[in-house]
């Protein structure tokens, strides 16, 4: 808790610097990136409007010396930004940061959430300033390799089919055997009544048909 209070103090301190200089109408955008310094790469860049203005992240060495246990503070700072409305991006290979819309005018620097593809005239929810940008997630470039697992094996339709046929093959006869005499009789009667049972057997039909066909084939030359 102590560290967070001190952090707020620093933010206040920084905001003093954000007061625009009078002679040239330029502003400074300041903030902090959230995953701490040990995880960020030194080449992480802050880009305004696709490269119109850009700067590297900055490690605040002075602060580190005073308080040893707090996280390193990183400022994203950019001098000389004239008033306007900008898209701020954090160019990092390790983390995914949200894109931020920044409005800079004499009233100050105001950041907003933005969504790609939405209209620019629409302001997203406002964010605090100086910015405190936290990474949405780490960038994962690789596919996860699926290891062997019993559940995935059982989810396989072939395995399910096989399992089903095994069940039919082995368990059905036993079930039949376990049935008592009356029930078996009933079942056989049912089967007799079943119209399907009266259907001609496909294999016999096919065999008959084929034999007829063959006979015809054999006899054909005689007619010709």
């Amino acid at each position, binding site marked *: 808790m102590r560290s967070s209070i001190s952090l707020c103090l620093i933010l206040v301190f920084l905001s003093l610097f954000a007061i625009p200089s009078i002679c040239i109408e330029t502003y400074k955008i300041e903030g902090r990136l959230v995953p701490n*310094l040990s995880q960020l790469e*030194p*080449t992480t860049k802050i*880009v305004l*409007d*696709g*490269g*119109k203005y850009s*700067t*590297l*992240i*900055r*490690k*605040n*060495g*002075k602060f580190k010396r005073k308080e040893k246990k707090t996280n390193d503070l990183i400022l994203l700072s950019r*001098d*000389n930004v004239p008033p306007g*409305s900008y*898209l701020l991006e954090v*160019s*990092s*290979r*390790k983390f*995914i940061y949200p*894109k931020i*819309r920044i409005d800079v005018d004499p009233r100050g620097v105001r950041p907003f959430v933005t969504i*790609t*593809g939405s*209209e*620019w*005239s629409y302001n997203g929810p406002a964010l605090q300033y100086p910015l405190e940008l936290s990474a949405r997630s780490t*960038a*994962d*470039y*690789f*596919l996860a*390799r699926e290891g062997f697992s019993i559940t995935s094996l059982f989810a396989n339709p072939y395995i399910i089919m096989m399992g089903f046929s095994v069940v039919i093959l082995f368990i059905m006869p036993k079930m039949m055997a376990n049935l008592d005499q009356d029930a078996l009789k009933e079942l056989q009667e049912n089967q007799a009544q079943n119209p399907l049972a009266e259907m001609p057997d496909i294999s016999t039909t096919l065999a008959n048909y084929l034999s007829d066909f063959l006979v015809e084939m054999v006899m054909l030359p005689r007619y010709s």
Partner: protein
Amino acid sequence: MVRLRVFAFVVSLLVWHVEFVSSLYANQAGVIDWHHQYIGTPKTSFFHKFVSRGAYVLVASDRNVLASINVRSGNLDWRQVFDENENILAFKGYENVAISVSKRDHDYIVRSWESHSGFMLWENRIKDVGVMNSNPSIGDDDAPGVEVVFAADNLGVLALLEGTTVINLNFTDGNQIWRSDITDSSTVLYKLVEFEQKVYSVGLKKSIRSYTIEVNTYNISNGILKTQSLSSKIDHIKDMIVLGGTTQNGFIIWKEENNMRVNRLDTTVIEQAPLEALYGTVIPSFANANGKLELHDLNLGSRTEFLVQVPTNEGNTAAVFKVDPVSGRLLVLYDFEEKPENSVYSATFDKSERLIISRSRITAEDVAKVDIIAPGPRLVLGSYEMNYSLNSYGDLKKSVLDVDSKATGYRMLVISADGSMHFWKDHEVVWKSEESLAHTIEAEFLDLPERKLWTQEVDELAEQPEEAETISPLARYIRRVRTHIEQLKDLPAYLIAYAQRFITGDYEVEPIQLARKSKISLHRDTFGFRKLLIFVTRTKLIALDTNNKGQIVWSRYFGNDIFEFNKIFVVRSSTVKYPPLVFLKQERIVTRLFRLNALTGENFIPTENKEHFPSELSIPIIIKRILKLPIEEPDERTHIIALIDEELKARSLKGYHVENNVQPFDVTEVWSFGFPEGESIAAIGHRPQHEKVASLGRVLGDRSVLYKYLNPHLIAVATLSTSTNPTSLNVYLIDTFKGSILHHAIHENVGSSQPVRIAQIENLVVYHFWSENFNEKGYVVVVYELYESETPDQRFESPVFTSFAHERPYVSAQAYMFPYGVNAIGITTTKHGIATREFLFALDTNQVFGISKRILDPRRPQRALTSEDKEEMLIPYDPAIPDNKKWVLSYHLSIAGIKNIITSPALLESTSLVLVYGLDLWFTREAPSKTFDVLSEDFSKGTLLITIFGLILGILITKPMVRKKKVNSRWY
């Protein structure tokens, strides 16, 4: 027609059925791809020893890179790449901080870096430098007087900028303490020295015929200025050096007429030593001197030793001088002997503050000699001979010496004429880095010859019938048998390798290669993944092998600083018997053309036709354009190169027609195309010269076909009109044959500071730009597909395509928001063009992003999918291309400074070879539709074999049992 349709449908089914996400598993990273990191040629470099981690070399390079290199391995510890238009002018380390000064446009930027991590600590942009001064340059160096000095008591960083401004910045946060600009326009400052709370800037003031030395003195805390002139006459800035400072007095040493003069800063006393005394008497080797003395600062911090070098009748020599800090007199410490070769010197001091100097020179074609000398006690500490190839690297240019504090040894970073870095320790080459590749101008893929065609057999196969008649049948038979015996030698090795390959299932390795690993032979592999990459840099040609992690096959330095290469062509690819050839063009005042054997790098002299075009040729005119014509010359099967010395202007496009059949040919302008006022060309798309189009149309869901508009003369040109505010982007599709516009699109409110990129293939055009209108702000990528007609199954009336017909394509287009800025666009090419295309974007995050054609498809419907759309396998339209990290082909690698992406087909239809170059090199194989023609990596051949053997075994065991049982059942 029906057959075509069916074929096209089957092909598209085959290819489109595969998933469009092609990404890597973690263990595949770095297996098929390789990455070379470069930094460029060091401008300034110094050793830095960290207490816990050992020594590193910190480097600022001419490619605007700051880097820290591990001296043991040569690996980069960290690297910061600046923009191309931001030149690093000074780089200096102090304790655990390094300060860099760079110039961008008219501003100077001073940055502070943490030496061990590469994090920026602060930056300060200094504006309006040199505004008061008209910037007269005295020296030959482009940037006069940029210098960084650290105040001894940690108060500040003093920097001299542009030779006019001295600033003092706070060491910890970079805030400016004071700044002082020189208003006198005839003075240029060169050096900064700090001593005892005072800062001195030493400059030269122009008087009538020569220069006088001027010293400005500042108070370190408030910068109050005092100017003082020394009575002196100097011809050139190189005749003066300034030494000392920090812990002792600063001294100015200069050469005036026949004297060497020394002034202690803050005084007006001038000590003098006549030059005649040096020659012959004090320094024996100077007796033969026949040129000007050159004073060299050895960059030893506050030490006062320096080097004087002079050319002699038989080479050159040098001597080490010292200014005695107490008396301010000149002393001669050591005389290097006269040597015929050019020598490079560097100095350092060891733990006991003893000065050590190295002299390195090339004594033979492949030997470099290093002498390590302690000039004080006149000791030779070491004399080493190093392996060095003069033919590949050229002369030595610069060296930086260091003493290893733990083990007593001497190590040295050497920079050669081609820009490469070599790291030598005592007598061994620890590592070297081919930094000339950071200056790649162009690169080409070169197919390697097939092994079969490269042996004796070829001699027989390529024989002309007339030739064959002259040899008796017996001789031919004997030759045949001999060839077979020759081939028999490889058989045992082949069998072993075959078995090995059969078991492992690794077909990428050529069987014969497996067997003899030691010998590097340049032959194609089974799948055609192995090719040569030929790079042209300013003065050098380098061939890398795509296999073996991009190992250098050969390199050749064309040691001439006047010329710079600017073009390369592969004029003959490997065919039967003939080696592949490349063709190079260099130019400055005259144009020089080279023809080389691409497998060895040697000049190519045709064996049969002696009167042929020479392998080296100089033309005393400046060639403006050079083109490879798609015509082959019959004898040697080389492509013909056309040279055009007409000035072609950039503001308009022009079409030319070649007339006459006699050399030199005339070109006449056929058409010219002027863009409207205020428009300038931002990007031009080029259709690759050899592209394979698998199908002429696109099959829709209802089996009808949209026919592709495949005009070979189509180019896409993007222009930015700066006259309108805000800037608008115009995209023209132009038929280059007659110069007519086939399509014109305008995008308003486009960013002018962000680049426009365009790529073109088949009937596709893709371009990328920054858009900022009221609706959106972000990158946009637009894709065009050109068809002969909007309605399916309809073609142009004429069966033959001609540019003279007045037919225009139907352009189907769609725009998408793109998540990144782009430095280059490439498109995969496969052998037959059947695999789905993938667009490769070089992102501004130094990564390569691959997007399948299925995503960048103008036919993605903006409504609910109908069953026909589903059959065509379309994906519903989404305004944004997702920022899917799985599509990043280069995963977490940082491929800095990408300028171009080139692709080449492999023998497998599924696979395309991709080379990304610029500052770094990255090579990979990309299968845009997945490797549908190779068994997947997961396929385990071993398991399959074991299962089969298991089954056979099972049958063998159970067969007698079953038989026995059967017999038994009959018997009983």
